[in-house]
């Protein structure tokens, strides 16, 4: 990290922000958490800026008072690796060959004397490895510039629209602005929802329609405890943005409006929102739908209660990833610190999956009705309860016990496949842990039963035992920090699945992890593991894997890392055998 600052009789004015920050910065970025801090004057920082970006350095404008602080986090990592892989694309994402991967990040910020922050962020990945970038060989991971200060914020590029649960909660490539007018906060966003910047620019990289979108929100407090807001948003998919042979869908449009409140008083709180929407598919009749959510509760010193109800129509169309359409659920949740040695968490809920109902066929005048086919093995209505308990023992410091039990029962609504399908899920578990300063151990057991009358082939009971032991060594004393340390953990699990058909699957796994660090040398980690078992047909399952990773600093800002890893699976069964081995080196530079 580089941090430049300058203060004096004639400070530096925040004109830098207007002159330079909106420009994109190509730089080297901080990828290592261990990067050191270096202080330099403005000239040094700006010279490095120019060198890295290949363009003129931003101008600093001196003012009569105040100071501008520039912070620039930058860095790059370069990986070069060779991989051998076999098995085919259905079994492994990896292909063999020599590959490289370059990552660049830059975060340039300027803070004006009155605290306003301007920023420009940029991250880019360049690689010829198809498991990293499937289409093309470079991708912009983040591109964003903006400014925020007292009562306002605006940004362009990748913007996170985060208005409310039922309105807009989505990444957008466009612009957003927020500003207070007195007590009222207005937020506005507009842009395009696209898979990537590259897909936005090149039709050949699109697998989904471009979606033009806007979102508006007005919010203001009423008294100390109540805040109310209203939103309007909409989207329209561009049907010409994807060639017809790529996507078998028709473009859609959606518009919605919501209103909500956030209330908090003493130990009580409530969040509620209601929305109306209209959704349309090109060439088909539109659907109007509604949504309502209410979540409230009471938080005491030892007891917390939460209650909620969500009801979203299956055609409710919004810009919010949080608003899962077709859900109707009611829940109650409690956290209770019952005693100093026991805490309990309970949850009961009833949930209806409206998506499990048969879809409404397209209207006859436009397209002949598509017959409703057996659509889903999943059920429409579910009732569930879960209870977790955590125990600690004052007489045995470090000893802890966790218990959990849960069950959900569901049934199909009329009209779905199978008519009256029944679904049941049960699970129980216990986990015992013991932690001492230099070692720890755990022992766990999980049991689950699943049944589904519509898709009964995987009905089964699964029992899983797990155990782990960890130990660490170092030269730390009560008065000195450690100059070296070594950790070792061995973990194993045994899993047995009994299917209702009578078949049994089994898998035993053992994994050893070693990691160490010495101040003057660097750090390393090693993983060695394997599993043995058989599937439900009786076929042998054998896998083993390893990984060796070692790295050390190069000077104060650089680093080098060497790694080797591999996995070999089911080599004795040619139909499902796959393996991969990778060896590579990574160089990094961070400032």
């Amino acid at each position, binding site marked *: 990290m580089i941090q430049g600052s300058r203060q004096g009789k004639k400070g530096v004015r925040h004109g830098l922000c207007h002159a330079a920050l909106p420009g994109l910065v190509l730089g080297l970025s901080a990828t290592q958490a261990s990067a050191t801090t270096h202080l330099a004057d403005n000239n040094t920082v700006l010279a490095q800026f120019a060198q890295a970006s290949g363009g003129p350095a931003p101008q600093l404008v001196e003012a009569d008072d105040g100071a501008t602080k520039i912070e620039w*986090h930058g860095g790059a990592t370069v990986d070069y690796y060779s991989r051998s892989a076999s098995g085919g694309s259905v079994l492994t994402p990896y292909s063999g060959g020599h590959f490289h991967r370059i990552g660049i990040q830059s975060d340039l910020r300027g803070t004006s004397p009155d605290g306003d922050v301007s920023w420009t962020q940029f991250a880019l990945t360049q690689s010829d490895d198809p498991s990293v970038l499937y289409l093309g060989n470079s991708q912009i991971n*983040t591109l964003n510039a903006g400014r925020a200060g007292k009562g*306002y914020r605006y940004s362009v590029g990748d913007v996170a629209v985060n208005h409310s649960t039922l309105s807009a909660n989505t990444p957008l490539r466009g612009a957003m602005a927020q500003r*207070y007018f007195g007590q009222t906060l207005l937020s506005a966003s507009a842009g395009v929802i696209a898979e990537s910047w590259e897909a936005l620019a090149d039709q050949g990289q699109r697998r989904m329609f471009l979606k033009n979108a*806007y979102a508006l929100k007005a919010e203001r407090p009423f008294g100390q405890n109540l805040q109310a807001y209203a939103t309007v948003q909409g989207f329209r998919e561009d049907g010409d943005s994807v060639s017809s042979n790529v996507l078998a869908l028709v473009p859609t449009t959606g518009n919605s409006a919501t209103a909500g409140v956030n209330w908090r008083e003493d130990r009580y709180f409530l969040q509620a929102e209601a929305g109306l929407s209209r959704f349309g598919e090109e060439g088909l009749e539109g659907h109007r739908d509604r949504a309502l959510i209410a979540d409230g509760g009471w938080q005491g010193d030892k007891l917390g209660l939460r209650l909620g109800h969500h009801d979203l129509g299956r055609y409710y169309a919004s810009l919010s990833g949080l608003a*899962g359409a077709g859900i109707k659920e009611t829940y109650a949740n409690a956290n209770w610190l019952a005693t100093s040695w026991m805490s309990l968490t309970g949850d009961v809920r009833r949930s209806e999956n409206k998506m499990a109902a048969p879809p409404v066929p397209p209207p006859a005048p436009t397209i002949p009705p598509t017959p409703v086919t057996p659509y889903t093995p999943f059920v429409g209505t579910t009732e569930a309860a879960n209870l977790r308990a955590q125990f600690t023992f004052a007489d045995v410091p470090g000893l802890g016990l966790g218990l959990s039990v849960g069950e959900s029962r569901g049934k199909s609504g009329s009209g779905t496949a199978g008519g009256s399908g029944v679904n049941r899920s049960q699970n129980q578990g216990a986990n015992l842990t013991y932690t001492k300063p230099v070692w720890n151990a755990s022992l766990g057991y999980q049991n689950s039963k699943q049944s589904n009358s519509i898709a009964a082939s995987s009905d089964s009971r699964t029992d899983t035992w797990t155990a782990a032991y960890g130990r660490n060594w170092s030269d730390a004393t009560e008065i000195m920090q450690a100059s070296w340390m070594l950790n070792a953990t061995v973990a194993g699990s045994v899993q047995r699945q009994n299917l209702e058909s009578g078949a049994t699957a089994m898998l035993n796994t053992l994994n050893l992890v070693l990691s160490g660090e010495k101040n003057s040398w660097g750090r390393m980690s090693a993983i060695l593991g394997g599993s043995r078992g058989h599937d439900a047909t009786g076929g042998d399952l054998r896998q083993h894997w390893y990984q060796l990773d070692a790295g050390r600093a190069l000077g104060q800002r650089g680093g080098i890392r060497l790694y080797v890893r591999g996995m070999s699976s089911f080599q004795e069964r040619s139909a499902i055998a796959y393996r991969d081995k990778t060896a590579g080196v990574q160089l990094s530079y961070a400032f």
Partner: protein
Amino acid sequence: MKAIRAIAVLLIAFLPTASACAQTSPAEEKKPAVAGFDDMKAARAALDEIIRAYETGDIGLIQSRLDPAMIGYQRFIDGMRRDATGLKQIRLHLFEAQVTAGPDVAMIQAAWEKRFFGVTDFTPGLFTGRSTFLMHRAKDGWRMAAVSGDNPFSSESGVLATLNVMPGAIPLASVPICAGTYPLSIELIDPDLAGLQSVTIEAITSQGDREGVVLTAISPGRFRRVGLPLCQDAIPPFRSSGTVEINNTAVPATLTFRYVDANPGANRPPATLTRSVTIR
């Protein structure tokens, strides 16, 4: 579209003046929070932890990382438990990841491939999709608030189906005289249907024929048919006869396959997927 353009213009016009005309506000005392790469990295690490837990079937850990007020909580949890039972050796590979971050929110967009083996016969399977993972900063770190787009964790939560038909054009001369079968390949991939043994889609011709076509599961959620009862004759077709009939006196004709994905994910209502083949 006019509204979008107008808002975009207003936004652009507003940007240079925002700081100058900002008024005293409740946020005055707060220092502006700007997310950095460290926040993005921490959000991604929290997502990776959930992915590893899903792969190993540790649903309890995921449950402890979710807000009980999450919309669709039970459907999400039940779907993951069902996946853990029916799909073995799950490996979820994320690529082309991009991060958009706000002060207390990170939105990770990524493509994914989910590989697995069916529990009954250990048949390999592959699902693909594209998701946006909404991560919120909680008191104790980053938590996953929702998954929009195709949901890789829980088959029940919705993934957009893929319908493919090959070839895209059929010469009339290669269509057998009734009754016969044409080597047409139809494949439907819908992870929401994992567990079903067959699915019926619809075939419609521009000449008025309409038939149901049954596809058979070859692995969980993947249905295929190679060979369609398709033939030509010199008379108009009969609906629901079990054979797609082409009136060879009225070509070119279009054969359209249609499937309604009732749960396509992406907060999208039931979506109609179509593929067309031209016969000339």
